[in-house]
């Protein structure tokens, strides 16, 4: 592992067609199988003929499981071949970050689709009874990744605050109706109770399993943290994060993106056992090379510094929402610019802005390779 500017990604990677179609039990075209073989060769995957045989078989439970393992192995090799120091499996075992957890947990019911924007919707669940741990949602995936990865592992983990924020809170609101007359306070207290029950009953038991199985670093994904940019809500979030990670012998980091970071910056230093803030910046930055004025996207780093955050940054230097491939020089300059602001280069992990799931493997691979090269250029520049 590189001691200075270790490279990492955030979590998700697109699922190959042979994985998604295959998992649904649909027949694969020759072209789709050829794609699996071609990437397999590129990534040095062994026993490819076994995968080809599996892809031609009919649907079964054991085939589904095997497909998860194969795509997991592909994603791990993908990140390793691109040269990252810290890897995971591109979340190949998960449908997506919300549904995956909720479907495996008792106490929830999906109510149907609600609008996200335009013609996009998301399937929203309601909490209808106290959440209960039903089965593990990340452990098998972690064990497989641990066995197969040659590099250090960071496990992405959807945070409790986001799960609660994206869920209708029927159970707790019903429970407190009549008790508290003020509707606003009632909803807030119901949210708090839901949040801490979820942490106690579901989140901590799963973290405990991961830590016992050897997880050394868990990244808590909390995209919803900045949805309610008030101090009351941020204090609730900080309390929930601290409660989530309390007492575990494991490193934790926090990922957030596409937000106004002002309110997060005010509270980041209150997070305990949070070794790294992994944040999106490249998306809001210019594409010109250079440090200083060219780096319009990295202004908010100062806010975190001014408010006394002393941990590391998972510095987003690669935009995951565009096919533009950042040059190594641009990556280098983004890193060096932030070094100038924070002074201590050892606090920077070089990262993508967010998960790469919306990009093709071809584009993702090019972006990651250049990110790795850019980190190397930055190391040389500081020598």
């Amino acid at each position: 592992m590189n001691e200075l500017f270790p490279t990492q990604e955030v979590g998700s990677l697109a699922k190959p067609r042979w994985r998604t179609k295959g998992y649904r039990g649909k027949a694969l075209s020759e072209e789709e199988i050829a794609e699996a073989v071609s990437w397999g060769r590129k990534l040095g995957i062994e026993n490819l003929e076994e995968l080809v045989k599996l892809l031609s078989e009919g649907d079964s439970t054991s085939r589904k499981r095997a497909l998860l393992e194969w795509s997991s192995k592909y994603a791990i090799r993908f990140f390793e071949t691109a040269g990252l120091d810290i890897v995971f499996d591109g979340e190949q075992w998960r449908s997506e970050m919300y549904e995956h957890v909720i479907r495996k947990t008792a106490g929830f019911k999906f109510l149907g689709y609600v609008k996200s924007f335009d013609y996009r919707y998301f399937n929203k669940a309601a909490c209808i009874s106290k959440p209960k741990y039903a089965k593990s949602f990340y452990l098998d995936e972690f064990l497989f990744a641990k066995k197969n990865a040659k590099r250090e592992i960071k496990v992405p983990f959807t945070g409790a605050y986001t799960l609660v924020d994206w869920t209708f809170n029927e159970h707790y609101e019903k429970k407190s109706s009549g008790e508290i007359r003020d509707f606003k306070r009632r909803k807030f207290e119901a949210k708090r109770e839901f949040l801490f029950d979820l942490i106690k009953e579901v989140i901590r038991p799963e973290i405990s399993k991961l830590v016992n199985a050897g997880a050394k670093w868990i990244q808590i994904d909390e995209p919803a943290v900045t949805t309610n940019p008030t101090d009351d809500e941020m204090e609730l979030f900080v309390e929930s994060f601290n409660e989530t990670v309390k007492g575990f012998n494991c490193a934790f980091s926090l990922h957030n993106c596409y937000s106004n970071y002002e309110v997060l910056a005010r509270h980041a230093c209150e997070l305990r056992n949070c070794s790294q803030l992994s944040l999106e910046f490249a998306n809001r930055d210019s594409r010109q090379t250079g440090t200083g004025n060219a780096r319009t996207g990295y202004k908010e780093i100062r806010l975190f510094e001014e408010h006394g955050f002393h941990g590391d940054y998972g510095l987003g230097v690669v935009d995951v929402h565009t096919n533009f491939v950042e040059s190594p020089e641009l990556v280098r300059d983004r890193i060096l610019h932030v070094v100038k602001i924070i002074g201590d280069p050892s606090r920077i992990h070089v990262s993508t802005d967010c998960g790469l799931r919306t990009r093709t493997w071809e584009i993702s691979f090019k972006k990651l390779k250049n990110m790795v090269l850019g980190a190397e250029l930055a190391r040389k520049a500081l020598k």
Partner: protein
Amino acid sequence: MIGCYVTGALPRPNELIEKTRAYERGRISQKELEETFKKATETVIKAQVSAGLNYVTDGMLKWQDLLRPFTEGLEGITVGSLTRWFNNNTLYRKPIITDFVERDKEIVKNVTYLGKLPKNLLGKAILPAPFTFVALSENQYYEKEKLMFKFAEIINEEIRSLAEASFSYVQLSEPALVYEPLAPNVKKDKLALVNDVLEIAVKGTAIKTCLQTFFGDFSQILPEALDFPVDHLGIDLYETDIEKLKQYSFDKGVALGLVDSRSSLVEGQDELVAVAKEIIESIYRSRMEEVFICPNCDLEFLPWERAEEKMKVLSSVTKRLRGEFS
């Protein structure tokens, strides 16, 4: 008089959701999508009628967000990036004001299924209030206040046109004025400005108007809001300090956002009746004005079936309140 109505876009029923997704993926034609929009509009109007609402909207199923018909329909504005819609897990596209803003065609009428609205019932239309539109836009052209006055003129033209089209009621949606992170301490001079802007928006229109606030505490704009030149004031009771609200005496009508559009829990009616009764008795000490029972904001935050249930709650609570105050 105690009545009830909805205060924003209704959720798209499942069939429409499926068709819009199919359309996005290029699997159905524009014509088929349009047919589904019409059918779904009939469904959501019928639901309002059978629930017994006193004013009926067309459900605003076509509105991609509260601002979009204006963002896309007015000259001088371009459609900007996806931006979070207040503290919700939904997004809108930010209007970018790049040039002189002009209204050279009908805006709301063009996205409303006028022909589907029942002729024997009162029609309600919903528009963004000028302050909120400006607060949520990126203004690259006007001096700040001038844009607000310009938009107020456009809203005035729209209201006139909607009145001609036999609408009886216009709601101006005003979340930005009370949403805490945007308006931590609403200053008196800002409220004076909003007052002037509303004067222009409603000038010369012979139609009932309501300034519907939501996502924030209405009590923070009291007592100034009592002088706003609108007939009714809309209040989100899930964000408002109700005890503080009850300290004021009202001489105009209110729309009480008593049903929570952001919670799937169907409210108990006894409690809603009790809360509404207390508020009405407190704010109307001598003479009661018009009162509407409504959702706190757009019901589109819910799946359609839940929204339908909540409309029935609105209606039942209203009937019981009429009994209380008859």
